[in-house]
């Protein structure tokens, strides 16, 4: 399996993601945002960071960068795309995923370990994780508050597009376990076709025994 990690000015999780992908046997190339051609890839990863300094709206300027035309074409052909944190914001700004990520309800940048429940494991991103299992993965964001109209949320639920929800350590999805105000505690969703995945938690920061645990590695092991 081959992956491409897109590097925008201001990306800062690109090398961590590469290390995680390669650790689980995925050959990875780094692709600069101004490149016009995407190397042959099964998966494109949009990494976390602060692309273009979060100017205008998080992810908005990156979503118009040259390489994104190729990424959009790749996704339309059914190729897998995973956006982590700022990558998720870029995916909603590119309209590859529905909804939008607005400022955290408490107006604070939140950087801590949280727990998420895996709601749907029938995707190319979660296939090796048992349904309803609880993963501990760090979040680090200021704009992770998922917002969408009621109709859209109903649609996400009907199509099983909600993949991860913030929960407590026992797996209960509660208001107290919602760090940022996201509707329905949403932490990660896929598009209708299931080939584009966006998530706020950072699995690459929980893929090494010496750092904050191995729960994030389950996502990298699932990739296919």
């Amino acid at each position, binding site marked *: 399996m081959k992956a491409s990690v897109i590097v925008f000015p201001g990306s800062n999780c690109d090398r961590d993601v590469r290390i995680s992908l390669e650790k689980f046997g995925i050959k990875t190339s780094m692709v600069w945002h101004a490149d016009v051609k995407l190397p042959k890839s099964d998966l494109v990863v949009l990494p976390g960071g602060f692309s273009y300094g979060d100017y*205008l709206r998080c992810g*908005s300027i990156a979503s118009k960068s040259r390489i994104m035309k190729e990424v959009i074409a790749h996704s339309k052909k059914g190729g897998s795309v995973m956006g982590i944190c700022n990558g998720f914001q870029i995916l909603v*700004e590119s309209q590859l995923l529905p909804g939008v990520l607005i*400022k955290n309800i408490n107006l604070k940048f939140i950087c801590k370990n949280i727990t998420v429940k895996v709601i749907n494991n029938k995707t190319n991103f979660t296939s090796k994780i048992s349904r309803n299992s609880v993963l501990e993965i760090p979040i680090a964001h200021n704009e992770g508050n998922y917002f969408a109209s009621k109709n859209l949320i109903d649609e996400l639920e009907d199509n099983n597009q909600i993949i991860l929800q913030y929960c407590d350590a026992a797996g209960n999805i509660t208001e107290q376990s919602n760090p940022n105000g996201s509707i329905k505690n949403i932490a990660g969703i896929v598009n209708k076709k299931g080939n584009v995945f966006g998530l706020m938690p950072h699995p690459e920061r929980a893929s090494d025994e010496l750092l904050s645990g191995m729960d994030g590695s389950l996502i990298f092991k699932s990739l296919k």
Partner: protein
Amino acid sequence: MKLQVIVTLKKDVLDPQGSAIKSSLSNMGFKNIESLRQGKTFEIILKEKDEKAALSKAKDMCEKLLANLTIEDYSVRAIKE
């Protein structure tokens, strides 16, 4: 042609920044603030003499980049100097 674009959050979208500013103003003694919403303005100078064409170009900019129509509304006007 000079244009002003105003981008605001849609009515039913939560505006935590606006609420924080509103409560700060109240604490400072500005009473009776019913509501406060934060937005953005852009001043654009276009090499375009025709007002209608300039406005339509600015609207296109709003739809494609300046506003996220999922959560934001925009308005465009020409500024006469």
